[in-house]
């Protein structure tokens, strides 16, 4: 037991003495949290539009005003030439072309329907889909306004059943994207510290050669591993606290669930990720290698974890792979506990999955680690 305490003391001394790494460990994750949370949004604001209004009637002009008033669209160019609008899009000046045909108002009055052509720059397919949803919503709302204006008799409710859709967004009524991203990014931070830094730390000792000095002492393998991993476990939890403070103060993320639960679950998750870091360190000789392998594994896990793209939208094989991804479980836990106020019972399945990962990864790492270098 005393051995471990000495080892911990040595580790912390080394960590704090390493001047270059200190800002990386403490400042960088917080900057990342701030920058990423502000940058990471799949909302599409400021869609630039090239407008071709061949009608020029009050109705068409009011439609355009509605588009601009929504805050999502900005008309950059007005032209009568489709070729010119095309050029605008090729140059990247606009992302959408709104083409109102010549007899728009007349058709609406007389037949009740009129087409509007929308061409979207779909390089970013998902964003284009989002913009389409916005546009359709604006058109539908405007159709209703226009009906009032034209004083068309309202449809007979018996000939025409009217389905009025009333919706309510739970947990996030303002559709604040940051509420969704910040818990996930907290997971990212904790994971980086847990896996990256711990693996690089052990390999650094290997590279410098001080690991030999430790190996010739009568330190037990178990004590050595605990001594190496516990500091980063503690550091990661400290980071989590700092991250939670930022989340509350800067982003006003709701924290409906029990914070002790969050810490407890993070602790379990970290054991698994530290095990992963340790395992990586046993198979690499240089810091460069460790960093690359850790980076590769992390990137794959993160991209597949449902942090940026919903798991439900992934192809079948990817969804099955998510079952093997500890990050996916942890992100689910964070979102449920913080945003929805889930209790331990609600996240039980995820908890047991994390325990399983921790056991497997640490066992793997410990078995692979030998005091004698090959």
């Amino acid at each position, binding site marked *: 037991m005393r051995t471990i305490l000495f080892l911990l003391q040595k580790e912390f001394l080394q960590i704090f003495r390493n001047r*270059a790494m200190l800002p990386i460990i403490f400042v960088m994750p917080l900057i*990342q949290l701030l*920058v*990423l949370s*502000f*940058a*990471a949004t*799949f*909302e*599409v604001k*400021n869609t630039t539009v090239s407008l071709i209004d061949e009608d020029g009637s009050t109705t068409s002009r009011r*439609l355009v005003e509605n588009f601009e008033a929504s805050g999502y669209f900005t008309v950059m160019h007005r032209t009568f030439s489709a070729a010119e609008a095309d050029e605008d*899009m090729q*140059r*990247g000046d606009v992302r959408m072309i709104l083409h109102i045909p010549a007899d728009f108002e007349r058709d609406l009055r007389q037949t*009740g*329907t009129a*087409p*509007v052509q*929308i061409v*979207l*720059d*779909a*390089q*970013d*397919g998902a*964003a284009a*889909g*989002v913009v*389409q949803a916005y546009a359709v*919503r604006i*058109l*539908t709302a405007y*159709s*209703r306004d*226009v*009906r009032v204006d*034209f004083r*068309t*008799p309202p449809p*007979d409710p018996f*000939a*025409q*059943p009217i*389905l*009025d*859709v009333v*919706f*309510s*967004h*739970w947990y*996030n*009524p303002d*559709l*604040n*994207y940051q509420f*969704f991203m910040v818990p996930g990014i907290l997971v990212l931070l904790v994971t980086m510290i847990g896996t990256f830094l711990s693996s690089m730390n052990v390999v650094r000792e290997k590279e410098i050669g001080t690991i030999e000095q430790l190996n010739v002492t009568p330190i037990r393998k178990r004590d050595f591993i605990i001594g190496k991993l516990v500091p980063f476990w503690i550091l990661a939890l400290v980071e989590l606290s700092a991250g939670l403070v930022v989340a509350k103060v800067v982003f006003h993320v709701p924290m409906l669930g029990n914070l002790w639960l969050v810490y407890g679950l993070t602790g379990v998750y970290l054991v698994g990720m530290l095990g992963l870091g340790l395992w990586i360190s046993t198979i690499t000789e240089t810091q460069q290698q460790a*960093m690359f392998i850790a980076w590769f594994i992390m990137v794959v896990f993160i991209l597949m974890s449902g942090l*940026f793209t*919903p798991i439900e939208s992934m192809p079948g094989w990817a969804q099955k792979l998510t079952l093997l991804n500890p990050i996916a479980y942890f992100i689910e836990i964070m979102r449920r506990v913080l945003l929805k106020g889930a209790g331990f019972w609600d996240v039980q399945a995820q908890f047991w999955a994390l325990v399983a990962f921790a056991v497997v990864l640490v066992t793997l790492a410990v078995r692979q680690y030998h005091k004698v270098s090959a």
Partner: protein
Amino acid sequence: MQVLTDASDPNMANTILAYTTSILQDYQQRLASGPAGGVRIVPEVRMRYNPELKSVFLFVPGLIALILMLVCALMTSITITREKETGTMEVLLVSPLKPAQIIVGKVIPYLVISLAIVSVILTLARAVFQVPMRGSLTLLMLECLLFIGCALSLGILISTRSRTQQAAMMVSLSGLLLPTVILSGFIFPVSSMPLPLQMVSHIVPAKWFLIIVRGLMIKGVGFAEIWQETLVLAGMTLFFLAVSVKNFNDRLA
């Protein structure tokens, strides 16, 4: 009819609501017996460049930028710094080789590797994901070469200022890779970010490169549309090289 959505993911909630509403409207249309009493503006939507809304179109150019940054900037900075750290740089410097020759020798292998990687990615993108190549391939390769040059000069710059590999690695990771992934328009649209972040994204070389590559591959533009971005990249490369040379002469030589 009340629809309750789990809005912890706002985009999902929006999309689900849109789907549900349109299904309900569809159903309403089918129930309707008489003529439609009401006004409907019918949107005819055309998705240009990517009618099937495939997300790979967005990803592949960004991946090229990311991997080039990784190989060229990160690896170059680490390898030069490693020589400094282990002391073998001194040995090279006392030889009759000029410092510029040493650096060029260090950098050329990564240039060759990068070109090979770009070719592999492009071939895979075409063959497996059917990502189009609507512009000129030659122009694309030239622009890639320019970006490789930019990334290499960044790697050299970082190495002139780092004493240990760890420091070089961390600076590259946090100062290059993370901004490239987050702020360059790789995954998240730059136009949706708050203004200060948009300003910062102007100094991320990958941002300009992405506009060029996406323009060439997906939009099929010619040089006339991308000469400004090319100029920016060239300017950045020269700037990084100039600063590196100055640093090198001050410190090592």
